[in-house]
């Protein structure tokens, strides 16, 4: 695509480029593992993938799980990198995923540091109660009513059904397609499993009506990490760099206080998407690879409306047939996403970026999008009260 090539040629020396990625084993339980040792594995893995020296890393946005140290303080990682760090980011939502990449990328462009590692992971209970985020953190307006994370998405999905006639079958189709993608990815939890049908999804136990168990992502243990550096440094590495060509964030309200109302959520993220594409000098029509946040089937459907690829209320029809497969015009979550892969608390947010990077690097065998040049990545949450997005482009030539 001419527009993409033009975008790449304009890459300046300090534009952020992803040069290293790593995904640990992901499973419902990883006996004997700790969050700290999972993160160590991810850090070493990402460094090896990038082909950098650990002393090259001068910025750290790594979750600090302890033991020891101030809770969450990323500066605790400094000794591991053999030199004083120039930049850290510590909040648990900023040491991962799109937010992590955008903030680290901004720091790199500003000249605060040159090479940043981002990562998080979990083994064992996510918090002291062992419950999922949004159900055990002492959330005053949520806990008494048992408003789980999936219930948040369910309230939005139910209203979408009411207003637009969206059906459980349309949502189940999304879940079946993405879960079946995971059958081909050796790293996916459902790798090698049996083909899953819409009927299987609808026959699975109801969790938060209209979402069945198989409409929901897999809650796992595991970790992810990635490394960003300047375009200039990336050119000296053997690995094929993937440029962060654009990105943006959008927040509607705090998570886990009030109910998500469809009239507020609607196409939340659309303004961010437009900013991100504007920054990249591209449009959604240029996208070859879709890495959409998939905590549940419905949110994927909503995000296609948000992208403007179909009208409001038309997502159910839009996602039907082969459209989201490798043979369709919107290949989506070909790694199996979180539906066939992993939700670990926060690291799945990085996982979304990693699949985009890998598709643009190429060589993914039977899940590779041919000649992939542009990937869109989304992170979102809580039904959805926020959305963050990246536009990634291949090569840094």
């Amino acid at each position: 695509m001419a527009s993409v090539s033009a975008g790449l040629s304009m890459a300046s020396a300090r534009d952020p480029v992803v040069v290293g990625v790593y995904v640990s084993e992901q499973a419902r339980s990883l006996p004997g593992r700790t969050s700290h040792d999972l993160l160590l594995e991810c850090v070493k893995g990402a460094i090896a993938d990038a082909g950098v020296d650990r002393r090259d890393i001068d910025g750290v946005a790594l979750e600090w799980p302890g033991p020891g140290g101030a809770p969450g303080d990323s500066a605790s990682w400094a000794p591991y990198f053999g030199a004083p760090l120039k930049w850290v980011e510590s909040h648990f939502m900023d040491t991962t995923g799109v937010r992590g990449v955008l903030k680290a990328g901004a720091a790199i462009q500003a000249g605060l540091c040159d090479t940043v590692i981002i990562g998080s992971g979990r083994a064992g209970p996510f918090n002291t109660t062992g419950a999922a985020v949004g159900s055990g953190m002492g959330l005053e307006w949520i806990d008494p009513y048992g408003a789980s994370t999936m219930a948040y998405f369910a309230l939005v999905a139910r209203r979408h059904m009411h207003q637009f006639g969206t059906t459980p079958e349309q949502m189940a189709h999304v879940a079946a397609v993405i879960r079946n993608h995971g059958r081909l990815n050796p790293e996916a939890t459902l790798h090698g499993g049996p083909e899953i049908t819409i009927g299987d999804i609808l026959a699975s136990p109801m969790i938060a009506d209209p979402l069945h168990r198989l409409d929901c992502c897999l809650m796992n243990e595991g970790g992810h990490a990635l490394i960003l550096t300047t375009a200039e440094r990336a050119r000296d590495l053997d690995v094929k760099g993937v440029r962060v060509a654009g990105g943006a964030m959008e927040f509607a309200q705090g998570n886990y206080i009030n109910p998500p109302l469809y009239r507020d959520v609607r196409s939340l993220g659309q303004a961010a998407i437009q900013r991100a594409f504007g920054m990249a000098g591209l449009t959604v029509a240029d996208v070859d690879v879709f890495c959409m946040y998939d905590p549940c089937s419905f949110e994927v459907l909503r995000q296609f409306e948000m992208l403007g690829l179909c009208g409001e209320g038309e997502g159910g029809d839009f996602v039907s047939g082969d459209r989201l497969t490798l043979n369709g015009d919107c290949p989506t979550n070909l790694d199996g996403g979180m539906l066939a892969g992993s939700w670990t608390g926060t690291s799945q947010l990085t996982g979304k970026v990693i699949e985009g990077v890998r598709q643009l690097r190429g060589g993914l065998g039977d899940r590779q999008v041919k000649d992939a040049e542009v990937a869109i990545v989304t992170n979102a949450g809580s039904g959805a009260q926020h959305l963050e997005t990246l536009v990634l482009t291949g090569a840094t030539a």
Partner: protein
Amino acid sequence: MTTPELDFPVTLLSRPYWEAAAEGRLIAPRCNHCNRFFFAPEIACTHCFSTDWSWTEVAGQGELYSYSVIHRAPQPGMPTPYVLAAIDLPEGFAMFAHVVDCPLDKLACGLPVEVDFRPLHDGRIAPVFKPRQTVS
């Protein structure tokens, strides 16, 4: 004036809300500057930043904006299924609640509902909503 013991987590901001619920009243913060309601309670009015607001009793006549029948509770001790709802109140705010006394096949977005007060799984008396008895 008595200050009842509340054996669940409350904040200085929210204590009056739960005390009122225990007495069978639904109250919400209303700004004395712009006169608008907001929810949940915040230090300042989310419409105009004024810190001058008062707890105000509302009629408790609302509409079911959306709902989900929850079959898998996020924490132990919650009997299932229960009906989690987003309730729209005409005073101009929405809130989480449970819907009670309603056959599941009668649940529908837009259903007129009215407030009642019932104990939740943790023993607290909380506002819940049931189908409106008289439709005006």
